[in-house]
């Protein structure tokens, strides 16, 4: 279950891949929407950690356009609900995540990304 909350925290960890290695690009995805409990306090705590542009771009790639391009300063209920949905309810079940820098491909199968590296990629 790769949700965008974790995707937004995840950079490539292959050897020597230290810049331009975020966000990993999704392709060939199958997604599933699963309801989660709305927790505004959690979201407020999490917001400072978000890379906003990456989140908005990725959500749009996955077909969700509910987030504004600019991160709003006012955290009203409607915004928090959209954020909740994007971060915690969209699950990427199948597909590939590709590093924009070294092009390493992390395949996702049954919701679980394979993060294992080959010998020459271990830092």
């Amino acid at each position, binding site marked *: *279950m*790769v*949700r965008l*909350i*974790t995707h937004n*925290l*995840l*950079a*490539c*960890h292959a050897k020597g891949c230290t810049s331009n*290695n*975020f966000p990993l690009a999704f392709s060939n995805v*199958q*997604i*599933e*929407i*699963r*309801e*989660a*409990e709305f*927790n505004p*306090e*959690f979201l407020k*705590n*999490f917001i400072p*950690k978000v*890379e906003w542009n990456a989140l908005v771009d990725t959500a749009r790639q996955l*077909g969700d356009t509910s987030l504004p391009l600019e991160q709003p300063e006012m955290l009203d209920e409607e915004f928090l609900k959209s954020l909740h949905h994007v971060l*915690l309810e969209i699950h990427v*079940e199948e597909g590939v995540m590709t590093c924009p820098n070294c092009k390493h491909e992390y395949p996702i*199968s*049954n*919701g*679980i*990304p*394979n*993060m*294992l*590296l*080959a*010998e020459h990629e*271990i*830092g």
Partner: protein
Amino acid sequence: MSRPELQAPPEIYYGDVEAKKYTKNTRNQQIQADMTYRALELLNLPPDEPALLLDIGCGSGLSGEILDEEGYIWTGVDIAPSMLEVALEREVEGDLFLQDIGQGFGFRPGSFDGAISISVLQWLLNAETSHPTSSPPHRLNRFFTTLHSALKNPSRAVFQFYPSSDDQIQLITSIAQKAGFGGGIIVDYPNSNKARKVFLCLLVGGGGGQQQMPKGLDGEEVEDSRARFETRRERTGKDKNGKRKNMKVIDRDWILKKKELYRKRGKESVPRDSKFTGRKRRPVF
């Protein structure tokens, strides 16, 4: 019989049969749950802030289920596909990753509010994995360095593990320190053969006295970790009206809602077409 980590690489040892056996064993469930509660207590998170946690070597989700129950959002990593498959079947809420912690993490700096790891660290000292790897010190170094960066400042990472010698403890703590962590080893019930437990409690940041090393438990009676953790959280997590803030664990409505959610998701199984099954697929586009 020798220790599991001396017998085979983890993803082989925890194959389909052992993964199921391990998870179903009620005695084991109880032990892992108890140590998870103790680890949560040692994490010492602010009781009124819903946190994002990393479960290192999450296995089949025995510790993750407790994180769910306590209202934490979490990500789990494990190297054994069969263990992760059982975790999927048990429908834990956390995001799961197939990952060798000895290869390090790619999480952005400050991603997690804390990390726990129950009965895992000894594996990094012993059996090789079946894919190419480097030496244990190199793997430990890569692991601790990337973990330190993935944690926010200040925060903690708490590991329960089974060291087989003082040299091992020495090796682990010195590499963790070089990676930037403070903290060290805590032993609960050091004089009891049965109840003795070793924890590595690592601190990130903590200048200004925010971070104090906790003490190990001792005494005649072995206390119930869950009760102690929840009492402490309840006591400190109340607002000025005496109402519990954000605490979902004792909120019956929340539990009912969650059960309803589980029910809606359905438990019927889908054809087993790959290593990871047990999820109902509903492609959206």
